[in-house]
């Protein structure tokens, strides 16, 4: 395994070739490749010492200002013998095969062809189109760093490297997707992250065979152990501090080109409930907030099914005073509790989805219409009971407390499953569903590591960062279930 790793380290850039045959690069071949590309430029120049040089590039990918500074001006003014010596660029590489040349062209490099020596050189001059570093849109926090990833892979890696200035922070890059040629980079800290995880991730990425990847979640979909589960097996985050923290405790981070979200693995179910802010606030407050998150997850999944179960099957359980309220609010409804709840939940999902897709200003209007007009009007029209509207509201708000958006989405699905079970079997149905969900969670894995750790398999010591977040000085070791190479988080341990 290690020998394999070393081999990979020597050759970090692995390109999964679109064609297996290796064609030598020639000018004719290149011209054929660039034929019918309108933005392709082929420019011929003569240097000071009379050499003929040809520049080939795709205009839309190249930074034209830099082209003048780095290539055109040196070419005209210099009198070196070989052309690559003119270039004001840190990375000039020579090309042998046509495939290499294609890759460089598509990456935004300028290809220089020295006609006298018949040499091909690639000079990286990508047009670094990117938005500025902004605040995270999905994982907002009050304290802590405000920067988030953008679509530029190198910039993203820089943000992590600034947080982990270590030579041990290793990166391995791959190219996947026959159309998109997406660059995927695995980041891990050598000497902390278990090398098994790296090798599993490496194998999984190498085995991906698909044409187009536009988002990191698509990469995750190919790498997941359980493709039919509603629970995410990779944590997607756009926060560099989250990534740095995860790397520090022995996880690995997978970054995908042109995506503002990195994938963190291996994760457990409980990681999805942890916010970066948990580690910035005082431990008692963090623990309280974390418990509230778990509670709200349970509420969001079970509250409506519980209402249906109780109003359909177990009216004996309801305290008399609440029974009065329920009876009165339900007395004029034409629907059974199941249909009432089902229709309201579907409506809620429609409103949720619509408000996400709408521009911000229309979204506000939608909130007013959805919340006030539909909510109140359905009660007045007699389609839903007051009590249910209250419960739907509580469960909807509770579902948003979980920091991970994907879990919020899976909540709704679980809610519908439990709703069906509750309608047919009452509380036993909910119990059955809960057992099913727990069994499913227990069976899941992320990068082949147990998803329900440290509860099952049981790691008592790790409970200090599970439902409660113990004071930071108590967290002397990295999570045991991640099997880090270096267990201790402190350099001088007594």
């Amino acid at each position, binding site marked *: 395994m290690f020998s394999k790793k070393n081999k990979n380290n020597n050759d970090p850039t692995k390109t999964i070739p679109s064609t297996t045959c290796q064609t030598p690069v020639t000018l004719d071949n290149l011209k054929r490749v660039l034929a019918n590309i309108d933005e392709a430029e082929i420019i011929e120049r003569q240097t000071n010492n009379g050499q003929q040089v040809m520049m080939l590039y795709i205009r839309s990918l190249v930074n034209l200002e830099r082209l003048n500074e780095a290539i055109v001006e040196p070419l005209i003014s210099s009198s070196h013998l070989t052309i690559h010596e003119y270039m004001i660029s840190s990375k000039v590489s020579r090309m042998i095969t046509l495939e290499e040349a294609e890759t460089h062209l598509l990456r935004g490099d300028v290809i220089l062809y020295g006609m006298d020596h018949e040499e091909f050189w690639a000079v990286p001059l990508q047009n670094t189109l990117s938005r500025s570093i902004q605040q995270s849109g999905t994982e907002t926090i009050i304290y802590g760093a405000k920067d988030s990833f953008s679509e530029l892979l190198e910039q993203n890696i820089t943000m992590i490297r600034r947080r982990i200035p270590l030579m041990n922070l290793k990166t391995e890059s791959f190219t996947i997707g026959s159309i998109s040629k997406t660059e995927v980079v695995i980041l891990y800290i050598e000497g902390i992250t278990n090398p098994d995880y790296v090798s599993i991730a490496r194998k999984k990425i190498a085995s991906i065979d698909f044409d187009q990847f536009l988002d990191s979640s698509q990469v995750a979909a190919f790498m997941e152990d359980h493709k039919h589960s509603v629970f995410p097996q990779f944590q997607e985050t756009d926060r560099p501090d989250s990534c740095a923290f995860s790397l520090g405790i022995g996880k690995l981070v997978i970054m995908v080109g042109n995506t503002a979200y990195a994938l963190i693995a291996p994760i457990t179910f409980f990681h999805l409930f942890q916010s970066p802010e948990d580690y910035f606030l005082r431990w008692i407050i963090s623990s309280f907030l974390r418990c509230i998150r778990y509670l709200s997850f349970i509420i969001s999944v079970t509250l409506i099914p519980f209402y249906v179960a109780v*109003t*359909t*099957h177990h*009216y*004996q359980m*309801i305290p*008399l005073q609440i*029974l*009065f309220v*329920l*009876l*009165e609010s*339900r*007395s004029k*409804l034409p629907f*059974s*509790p199941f249909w009432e709840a089902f229709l309201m939940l579907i409506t809620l999902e429609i409103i949720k989805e619509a408000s996400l897709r709408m521009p911000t200003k229309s979204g506000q209007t939608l909130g007013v219409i959805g919340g006030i007009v539909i909510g109140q009007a359905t009660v007045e029209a007699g389609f839903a009971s007051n009590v249910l509207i209250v419960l739907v509201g509580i469960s909807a708000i509770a579902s948003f407390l979980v920091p991970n958006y994907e879990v919020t989405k899976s909540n709704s699905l679980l809610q519908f499953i439990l709703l069906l079970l509750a309608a047919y*079997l*009452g509380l036993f149905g909910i119990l059955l569903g809960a057992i099913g969900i727990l069994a499913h969670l227990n069976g899941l894995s992320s990068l082949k590591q147990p998803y329900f750790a440290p509860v099952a398999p049981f790691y008592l010591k790790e409970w200090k960062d599970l439902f409660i977040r113990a004071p930071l000085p108590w967290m002397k070791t990295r999570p045991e279930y991640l099997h880090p190479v270096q267990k201790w988080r402190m350099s001088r341990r007594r």
Partner: protein
Amino acid sequence: MENNTIEEIAPVIFWSLNQSDDRHMDISTLVPPLIHEKKRMLTLKVDLQKQGGKEFNLIYYRELKPGQLRVIVINEELARKGVLPLISTYLMDTDISQRLYLIISRGNFEEFMREQLNDQANLDYFLYRMLKHYEASNQGEMSILNLHQFKNKLFSPFADPYLPLFEVKKDNFTYKGTAMFRHDKMINMLPLMDDQIFQLIDNDHYLKLFAIPSSDVTLGHVRSKVDIDLDPAYKNMTIKIDLTGRLEEYRGNKNLHEREELAKLHQNIEKYLVSRTSDLLKTMQQWKIDPLEIGTRTLHPFSKPISDSEWLKLWEKMKLKIEYRLTIQPLVNVNQ
């Protein structure tokens, strides 16, 4: 599984059971439980309770469900005949909670309900709330028992159950005292003064207010600590009661600022309490009942328990020694 959505059912809060004639009984309830519907009283003459439950459904558009049944009002006549058959029915029904209050009514409960219906819309619910309120510990007002507690006392060899007794008149529903049972049959009732002592020595060990008119005094927040001791031959019983409380009202002619006079008052109250308690216990001996569960004190580890009939014989003849130790805060300055 039955699938009854709550709007299709009418949860029954109380059932009132009355002796109608030798064979039959009247069973009544109020429907519907919904707040905004006009209530009416349903009464049926039936042989059996469950038959009543079934026949109610034939005259009412919703299905009556006893799942929320909270109060059973048993008429005194019926209680004197024995409540075991009634109780067993409720104990067997898994729908019915054991937190069900049993009360004995003296008078025509149905008539009272009918009269009050126009004035109070949720009479049945208020009745339940009242009992629930008085069930809470340290309330020091009534002796309330639920089905579960009643069953435990009924089937224990060394205990006799009791229930609250309410007197019902056309426009009044008043707590009158505690109905005492021998096994499942009601024997008699403890009137209010005895009932207060019963509260002190057994039920709550607490009385919010304890009025003693003969000594012109009202004690408040009275708490008792009872120590019962039986001699090894079970011929004598010593009951020591530590009472603490405060003097809340005094209308006599003693000057309580004087220490001696206050001591006299203490003595008077103690004397009165001893005689009343002695009377109460003797009454229990005469009635051959043991609601205080004194018999359980004959149980010892590694020894064979005596039978309940044997205990009753011993209890009847037992000599009683009663001691009261009164600690009263006078709430006035007392001169040395």
